[in-house]
């Protein structure tokens, strides 16, 4: 439970920056990348996850491994009626956020995208832009 609340808080803060990528190597930290997936604990040098890199100031940082929200929280039912859940994976523009940003695993992303499309069809989610 403890590792659930913290990533959720960061996920909320990052929603506004969705759609724009960090400009270049100028940023010392890349923790503000627009990912909304839950990230598990800090694993420096973990499998595929932590990658040590020297920033401009020679500072080292680690990118946390993104984990699929649906696998971690064991959400199996991805339903088109659950707009609150689906809205977390839709950018401000109305686009479906790609897996590489959210960390959702392939099977879940497949279900998620079809659910989002169904929700769009029945006017629960917008095709483009914010819900009026």
């Amino acid at each position: 439970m403890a590792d659930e609340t913290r990533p959720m808080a960061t996920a909320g803060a990052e929603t506004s920056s969705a759609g724009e990528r960090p400009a270049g190597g100028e940023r010392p930290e890349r923790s503000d990348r627009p990912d909304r997936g839950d990230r598990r604990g800090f694993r420096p040098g973990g499998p595929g996850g932590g990658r040590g890199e020297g920033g401009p100031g020679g500072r080292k940082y680690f990118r946390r491994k993104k984990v699929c929200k649906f696998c971690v929280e064991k959400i199996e039912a991805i339903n088109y009626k659950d707009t609150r859940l689906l809205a977390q994976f839709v950018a401000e523009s109305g686009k479906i956020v790609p897996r590489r940003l959210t960390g959702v695993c392939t099977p879940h992303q497949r279900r998620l995208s079809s659910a989002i499309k169904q929700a769009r069809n029945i006017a629960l989610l917008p095709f483009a832009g914010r819900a009026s």
Partner: protein
Amino acid sequence: MNRTYELMFIVRPDMAEEDQDKLISTLESAVTSTGGQVKNVERMGKRRLAYTVRRFHDGIYVLLTVEGSGGLIHELERRLRVTEPVIKFLTVRIDEEQKRLEKIKAIRAARRKVSATPAAAGGEAAGEVPAVTA
């Protein structure tokens, strides 16, 4: 060959309550006459639409859960299409998804029991607690 479907439709926001009842009852009778079964009727009430549909910004959402064949759905969709106050509808087949969810649930329950028994050999209720928090 019975399948379960969810039929969600939106009617215009200025539709009277009794007209909605009439529409729903005609749909229900259409279902039962073709050998289907209405499992549940849920009125989700008035909601704001995410985009304008036929110049409406709001709509009254109704959700029907129907069991029947594909032909029945064809007939229901035809009816919805010709009904003037219905502005949008969506049919989703849900029985396969339900089956999948039940399977996962069963697997999880079995796994939980296995992991709980060595932790607390005596009572299962006591063993349940660490399994949930882990």
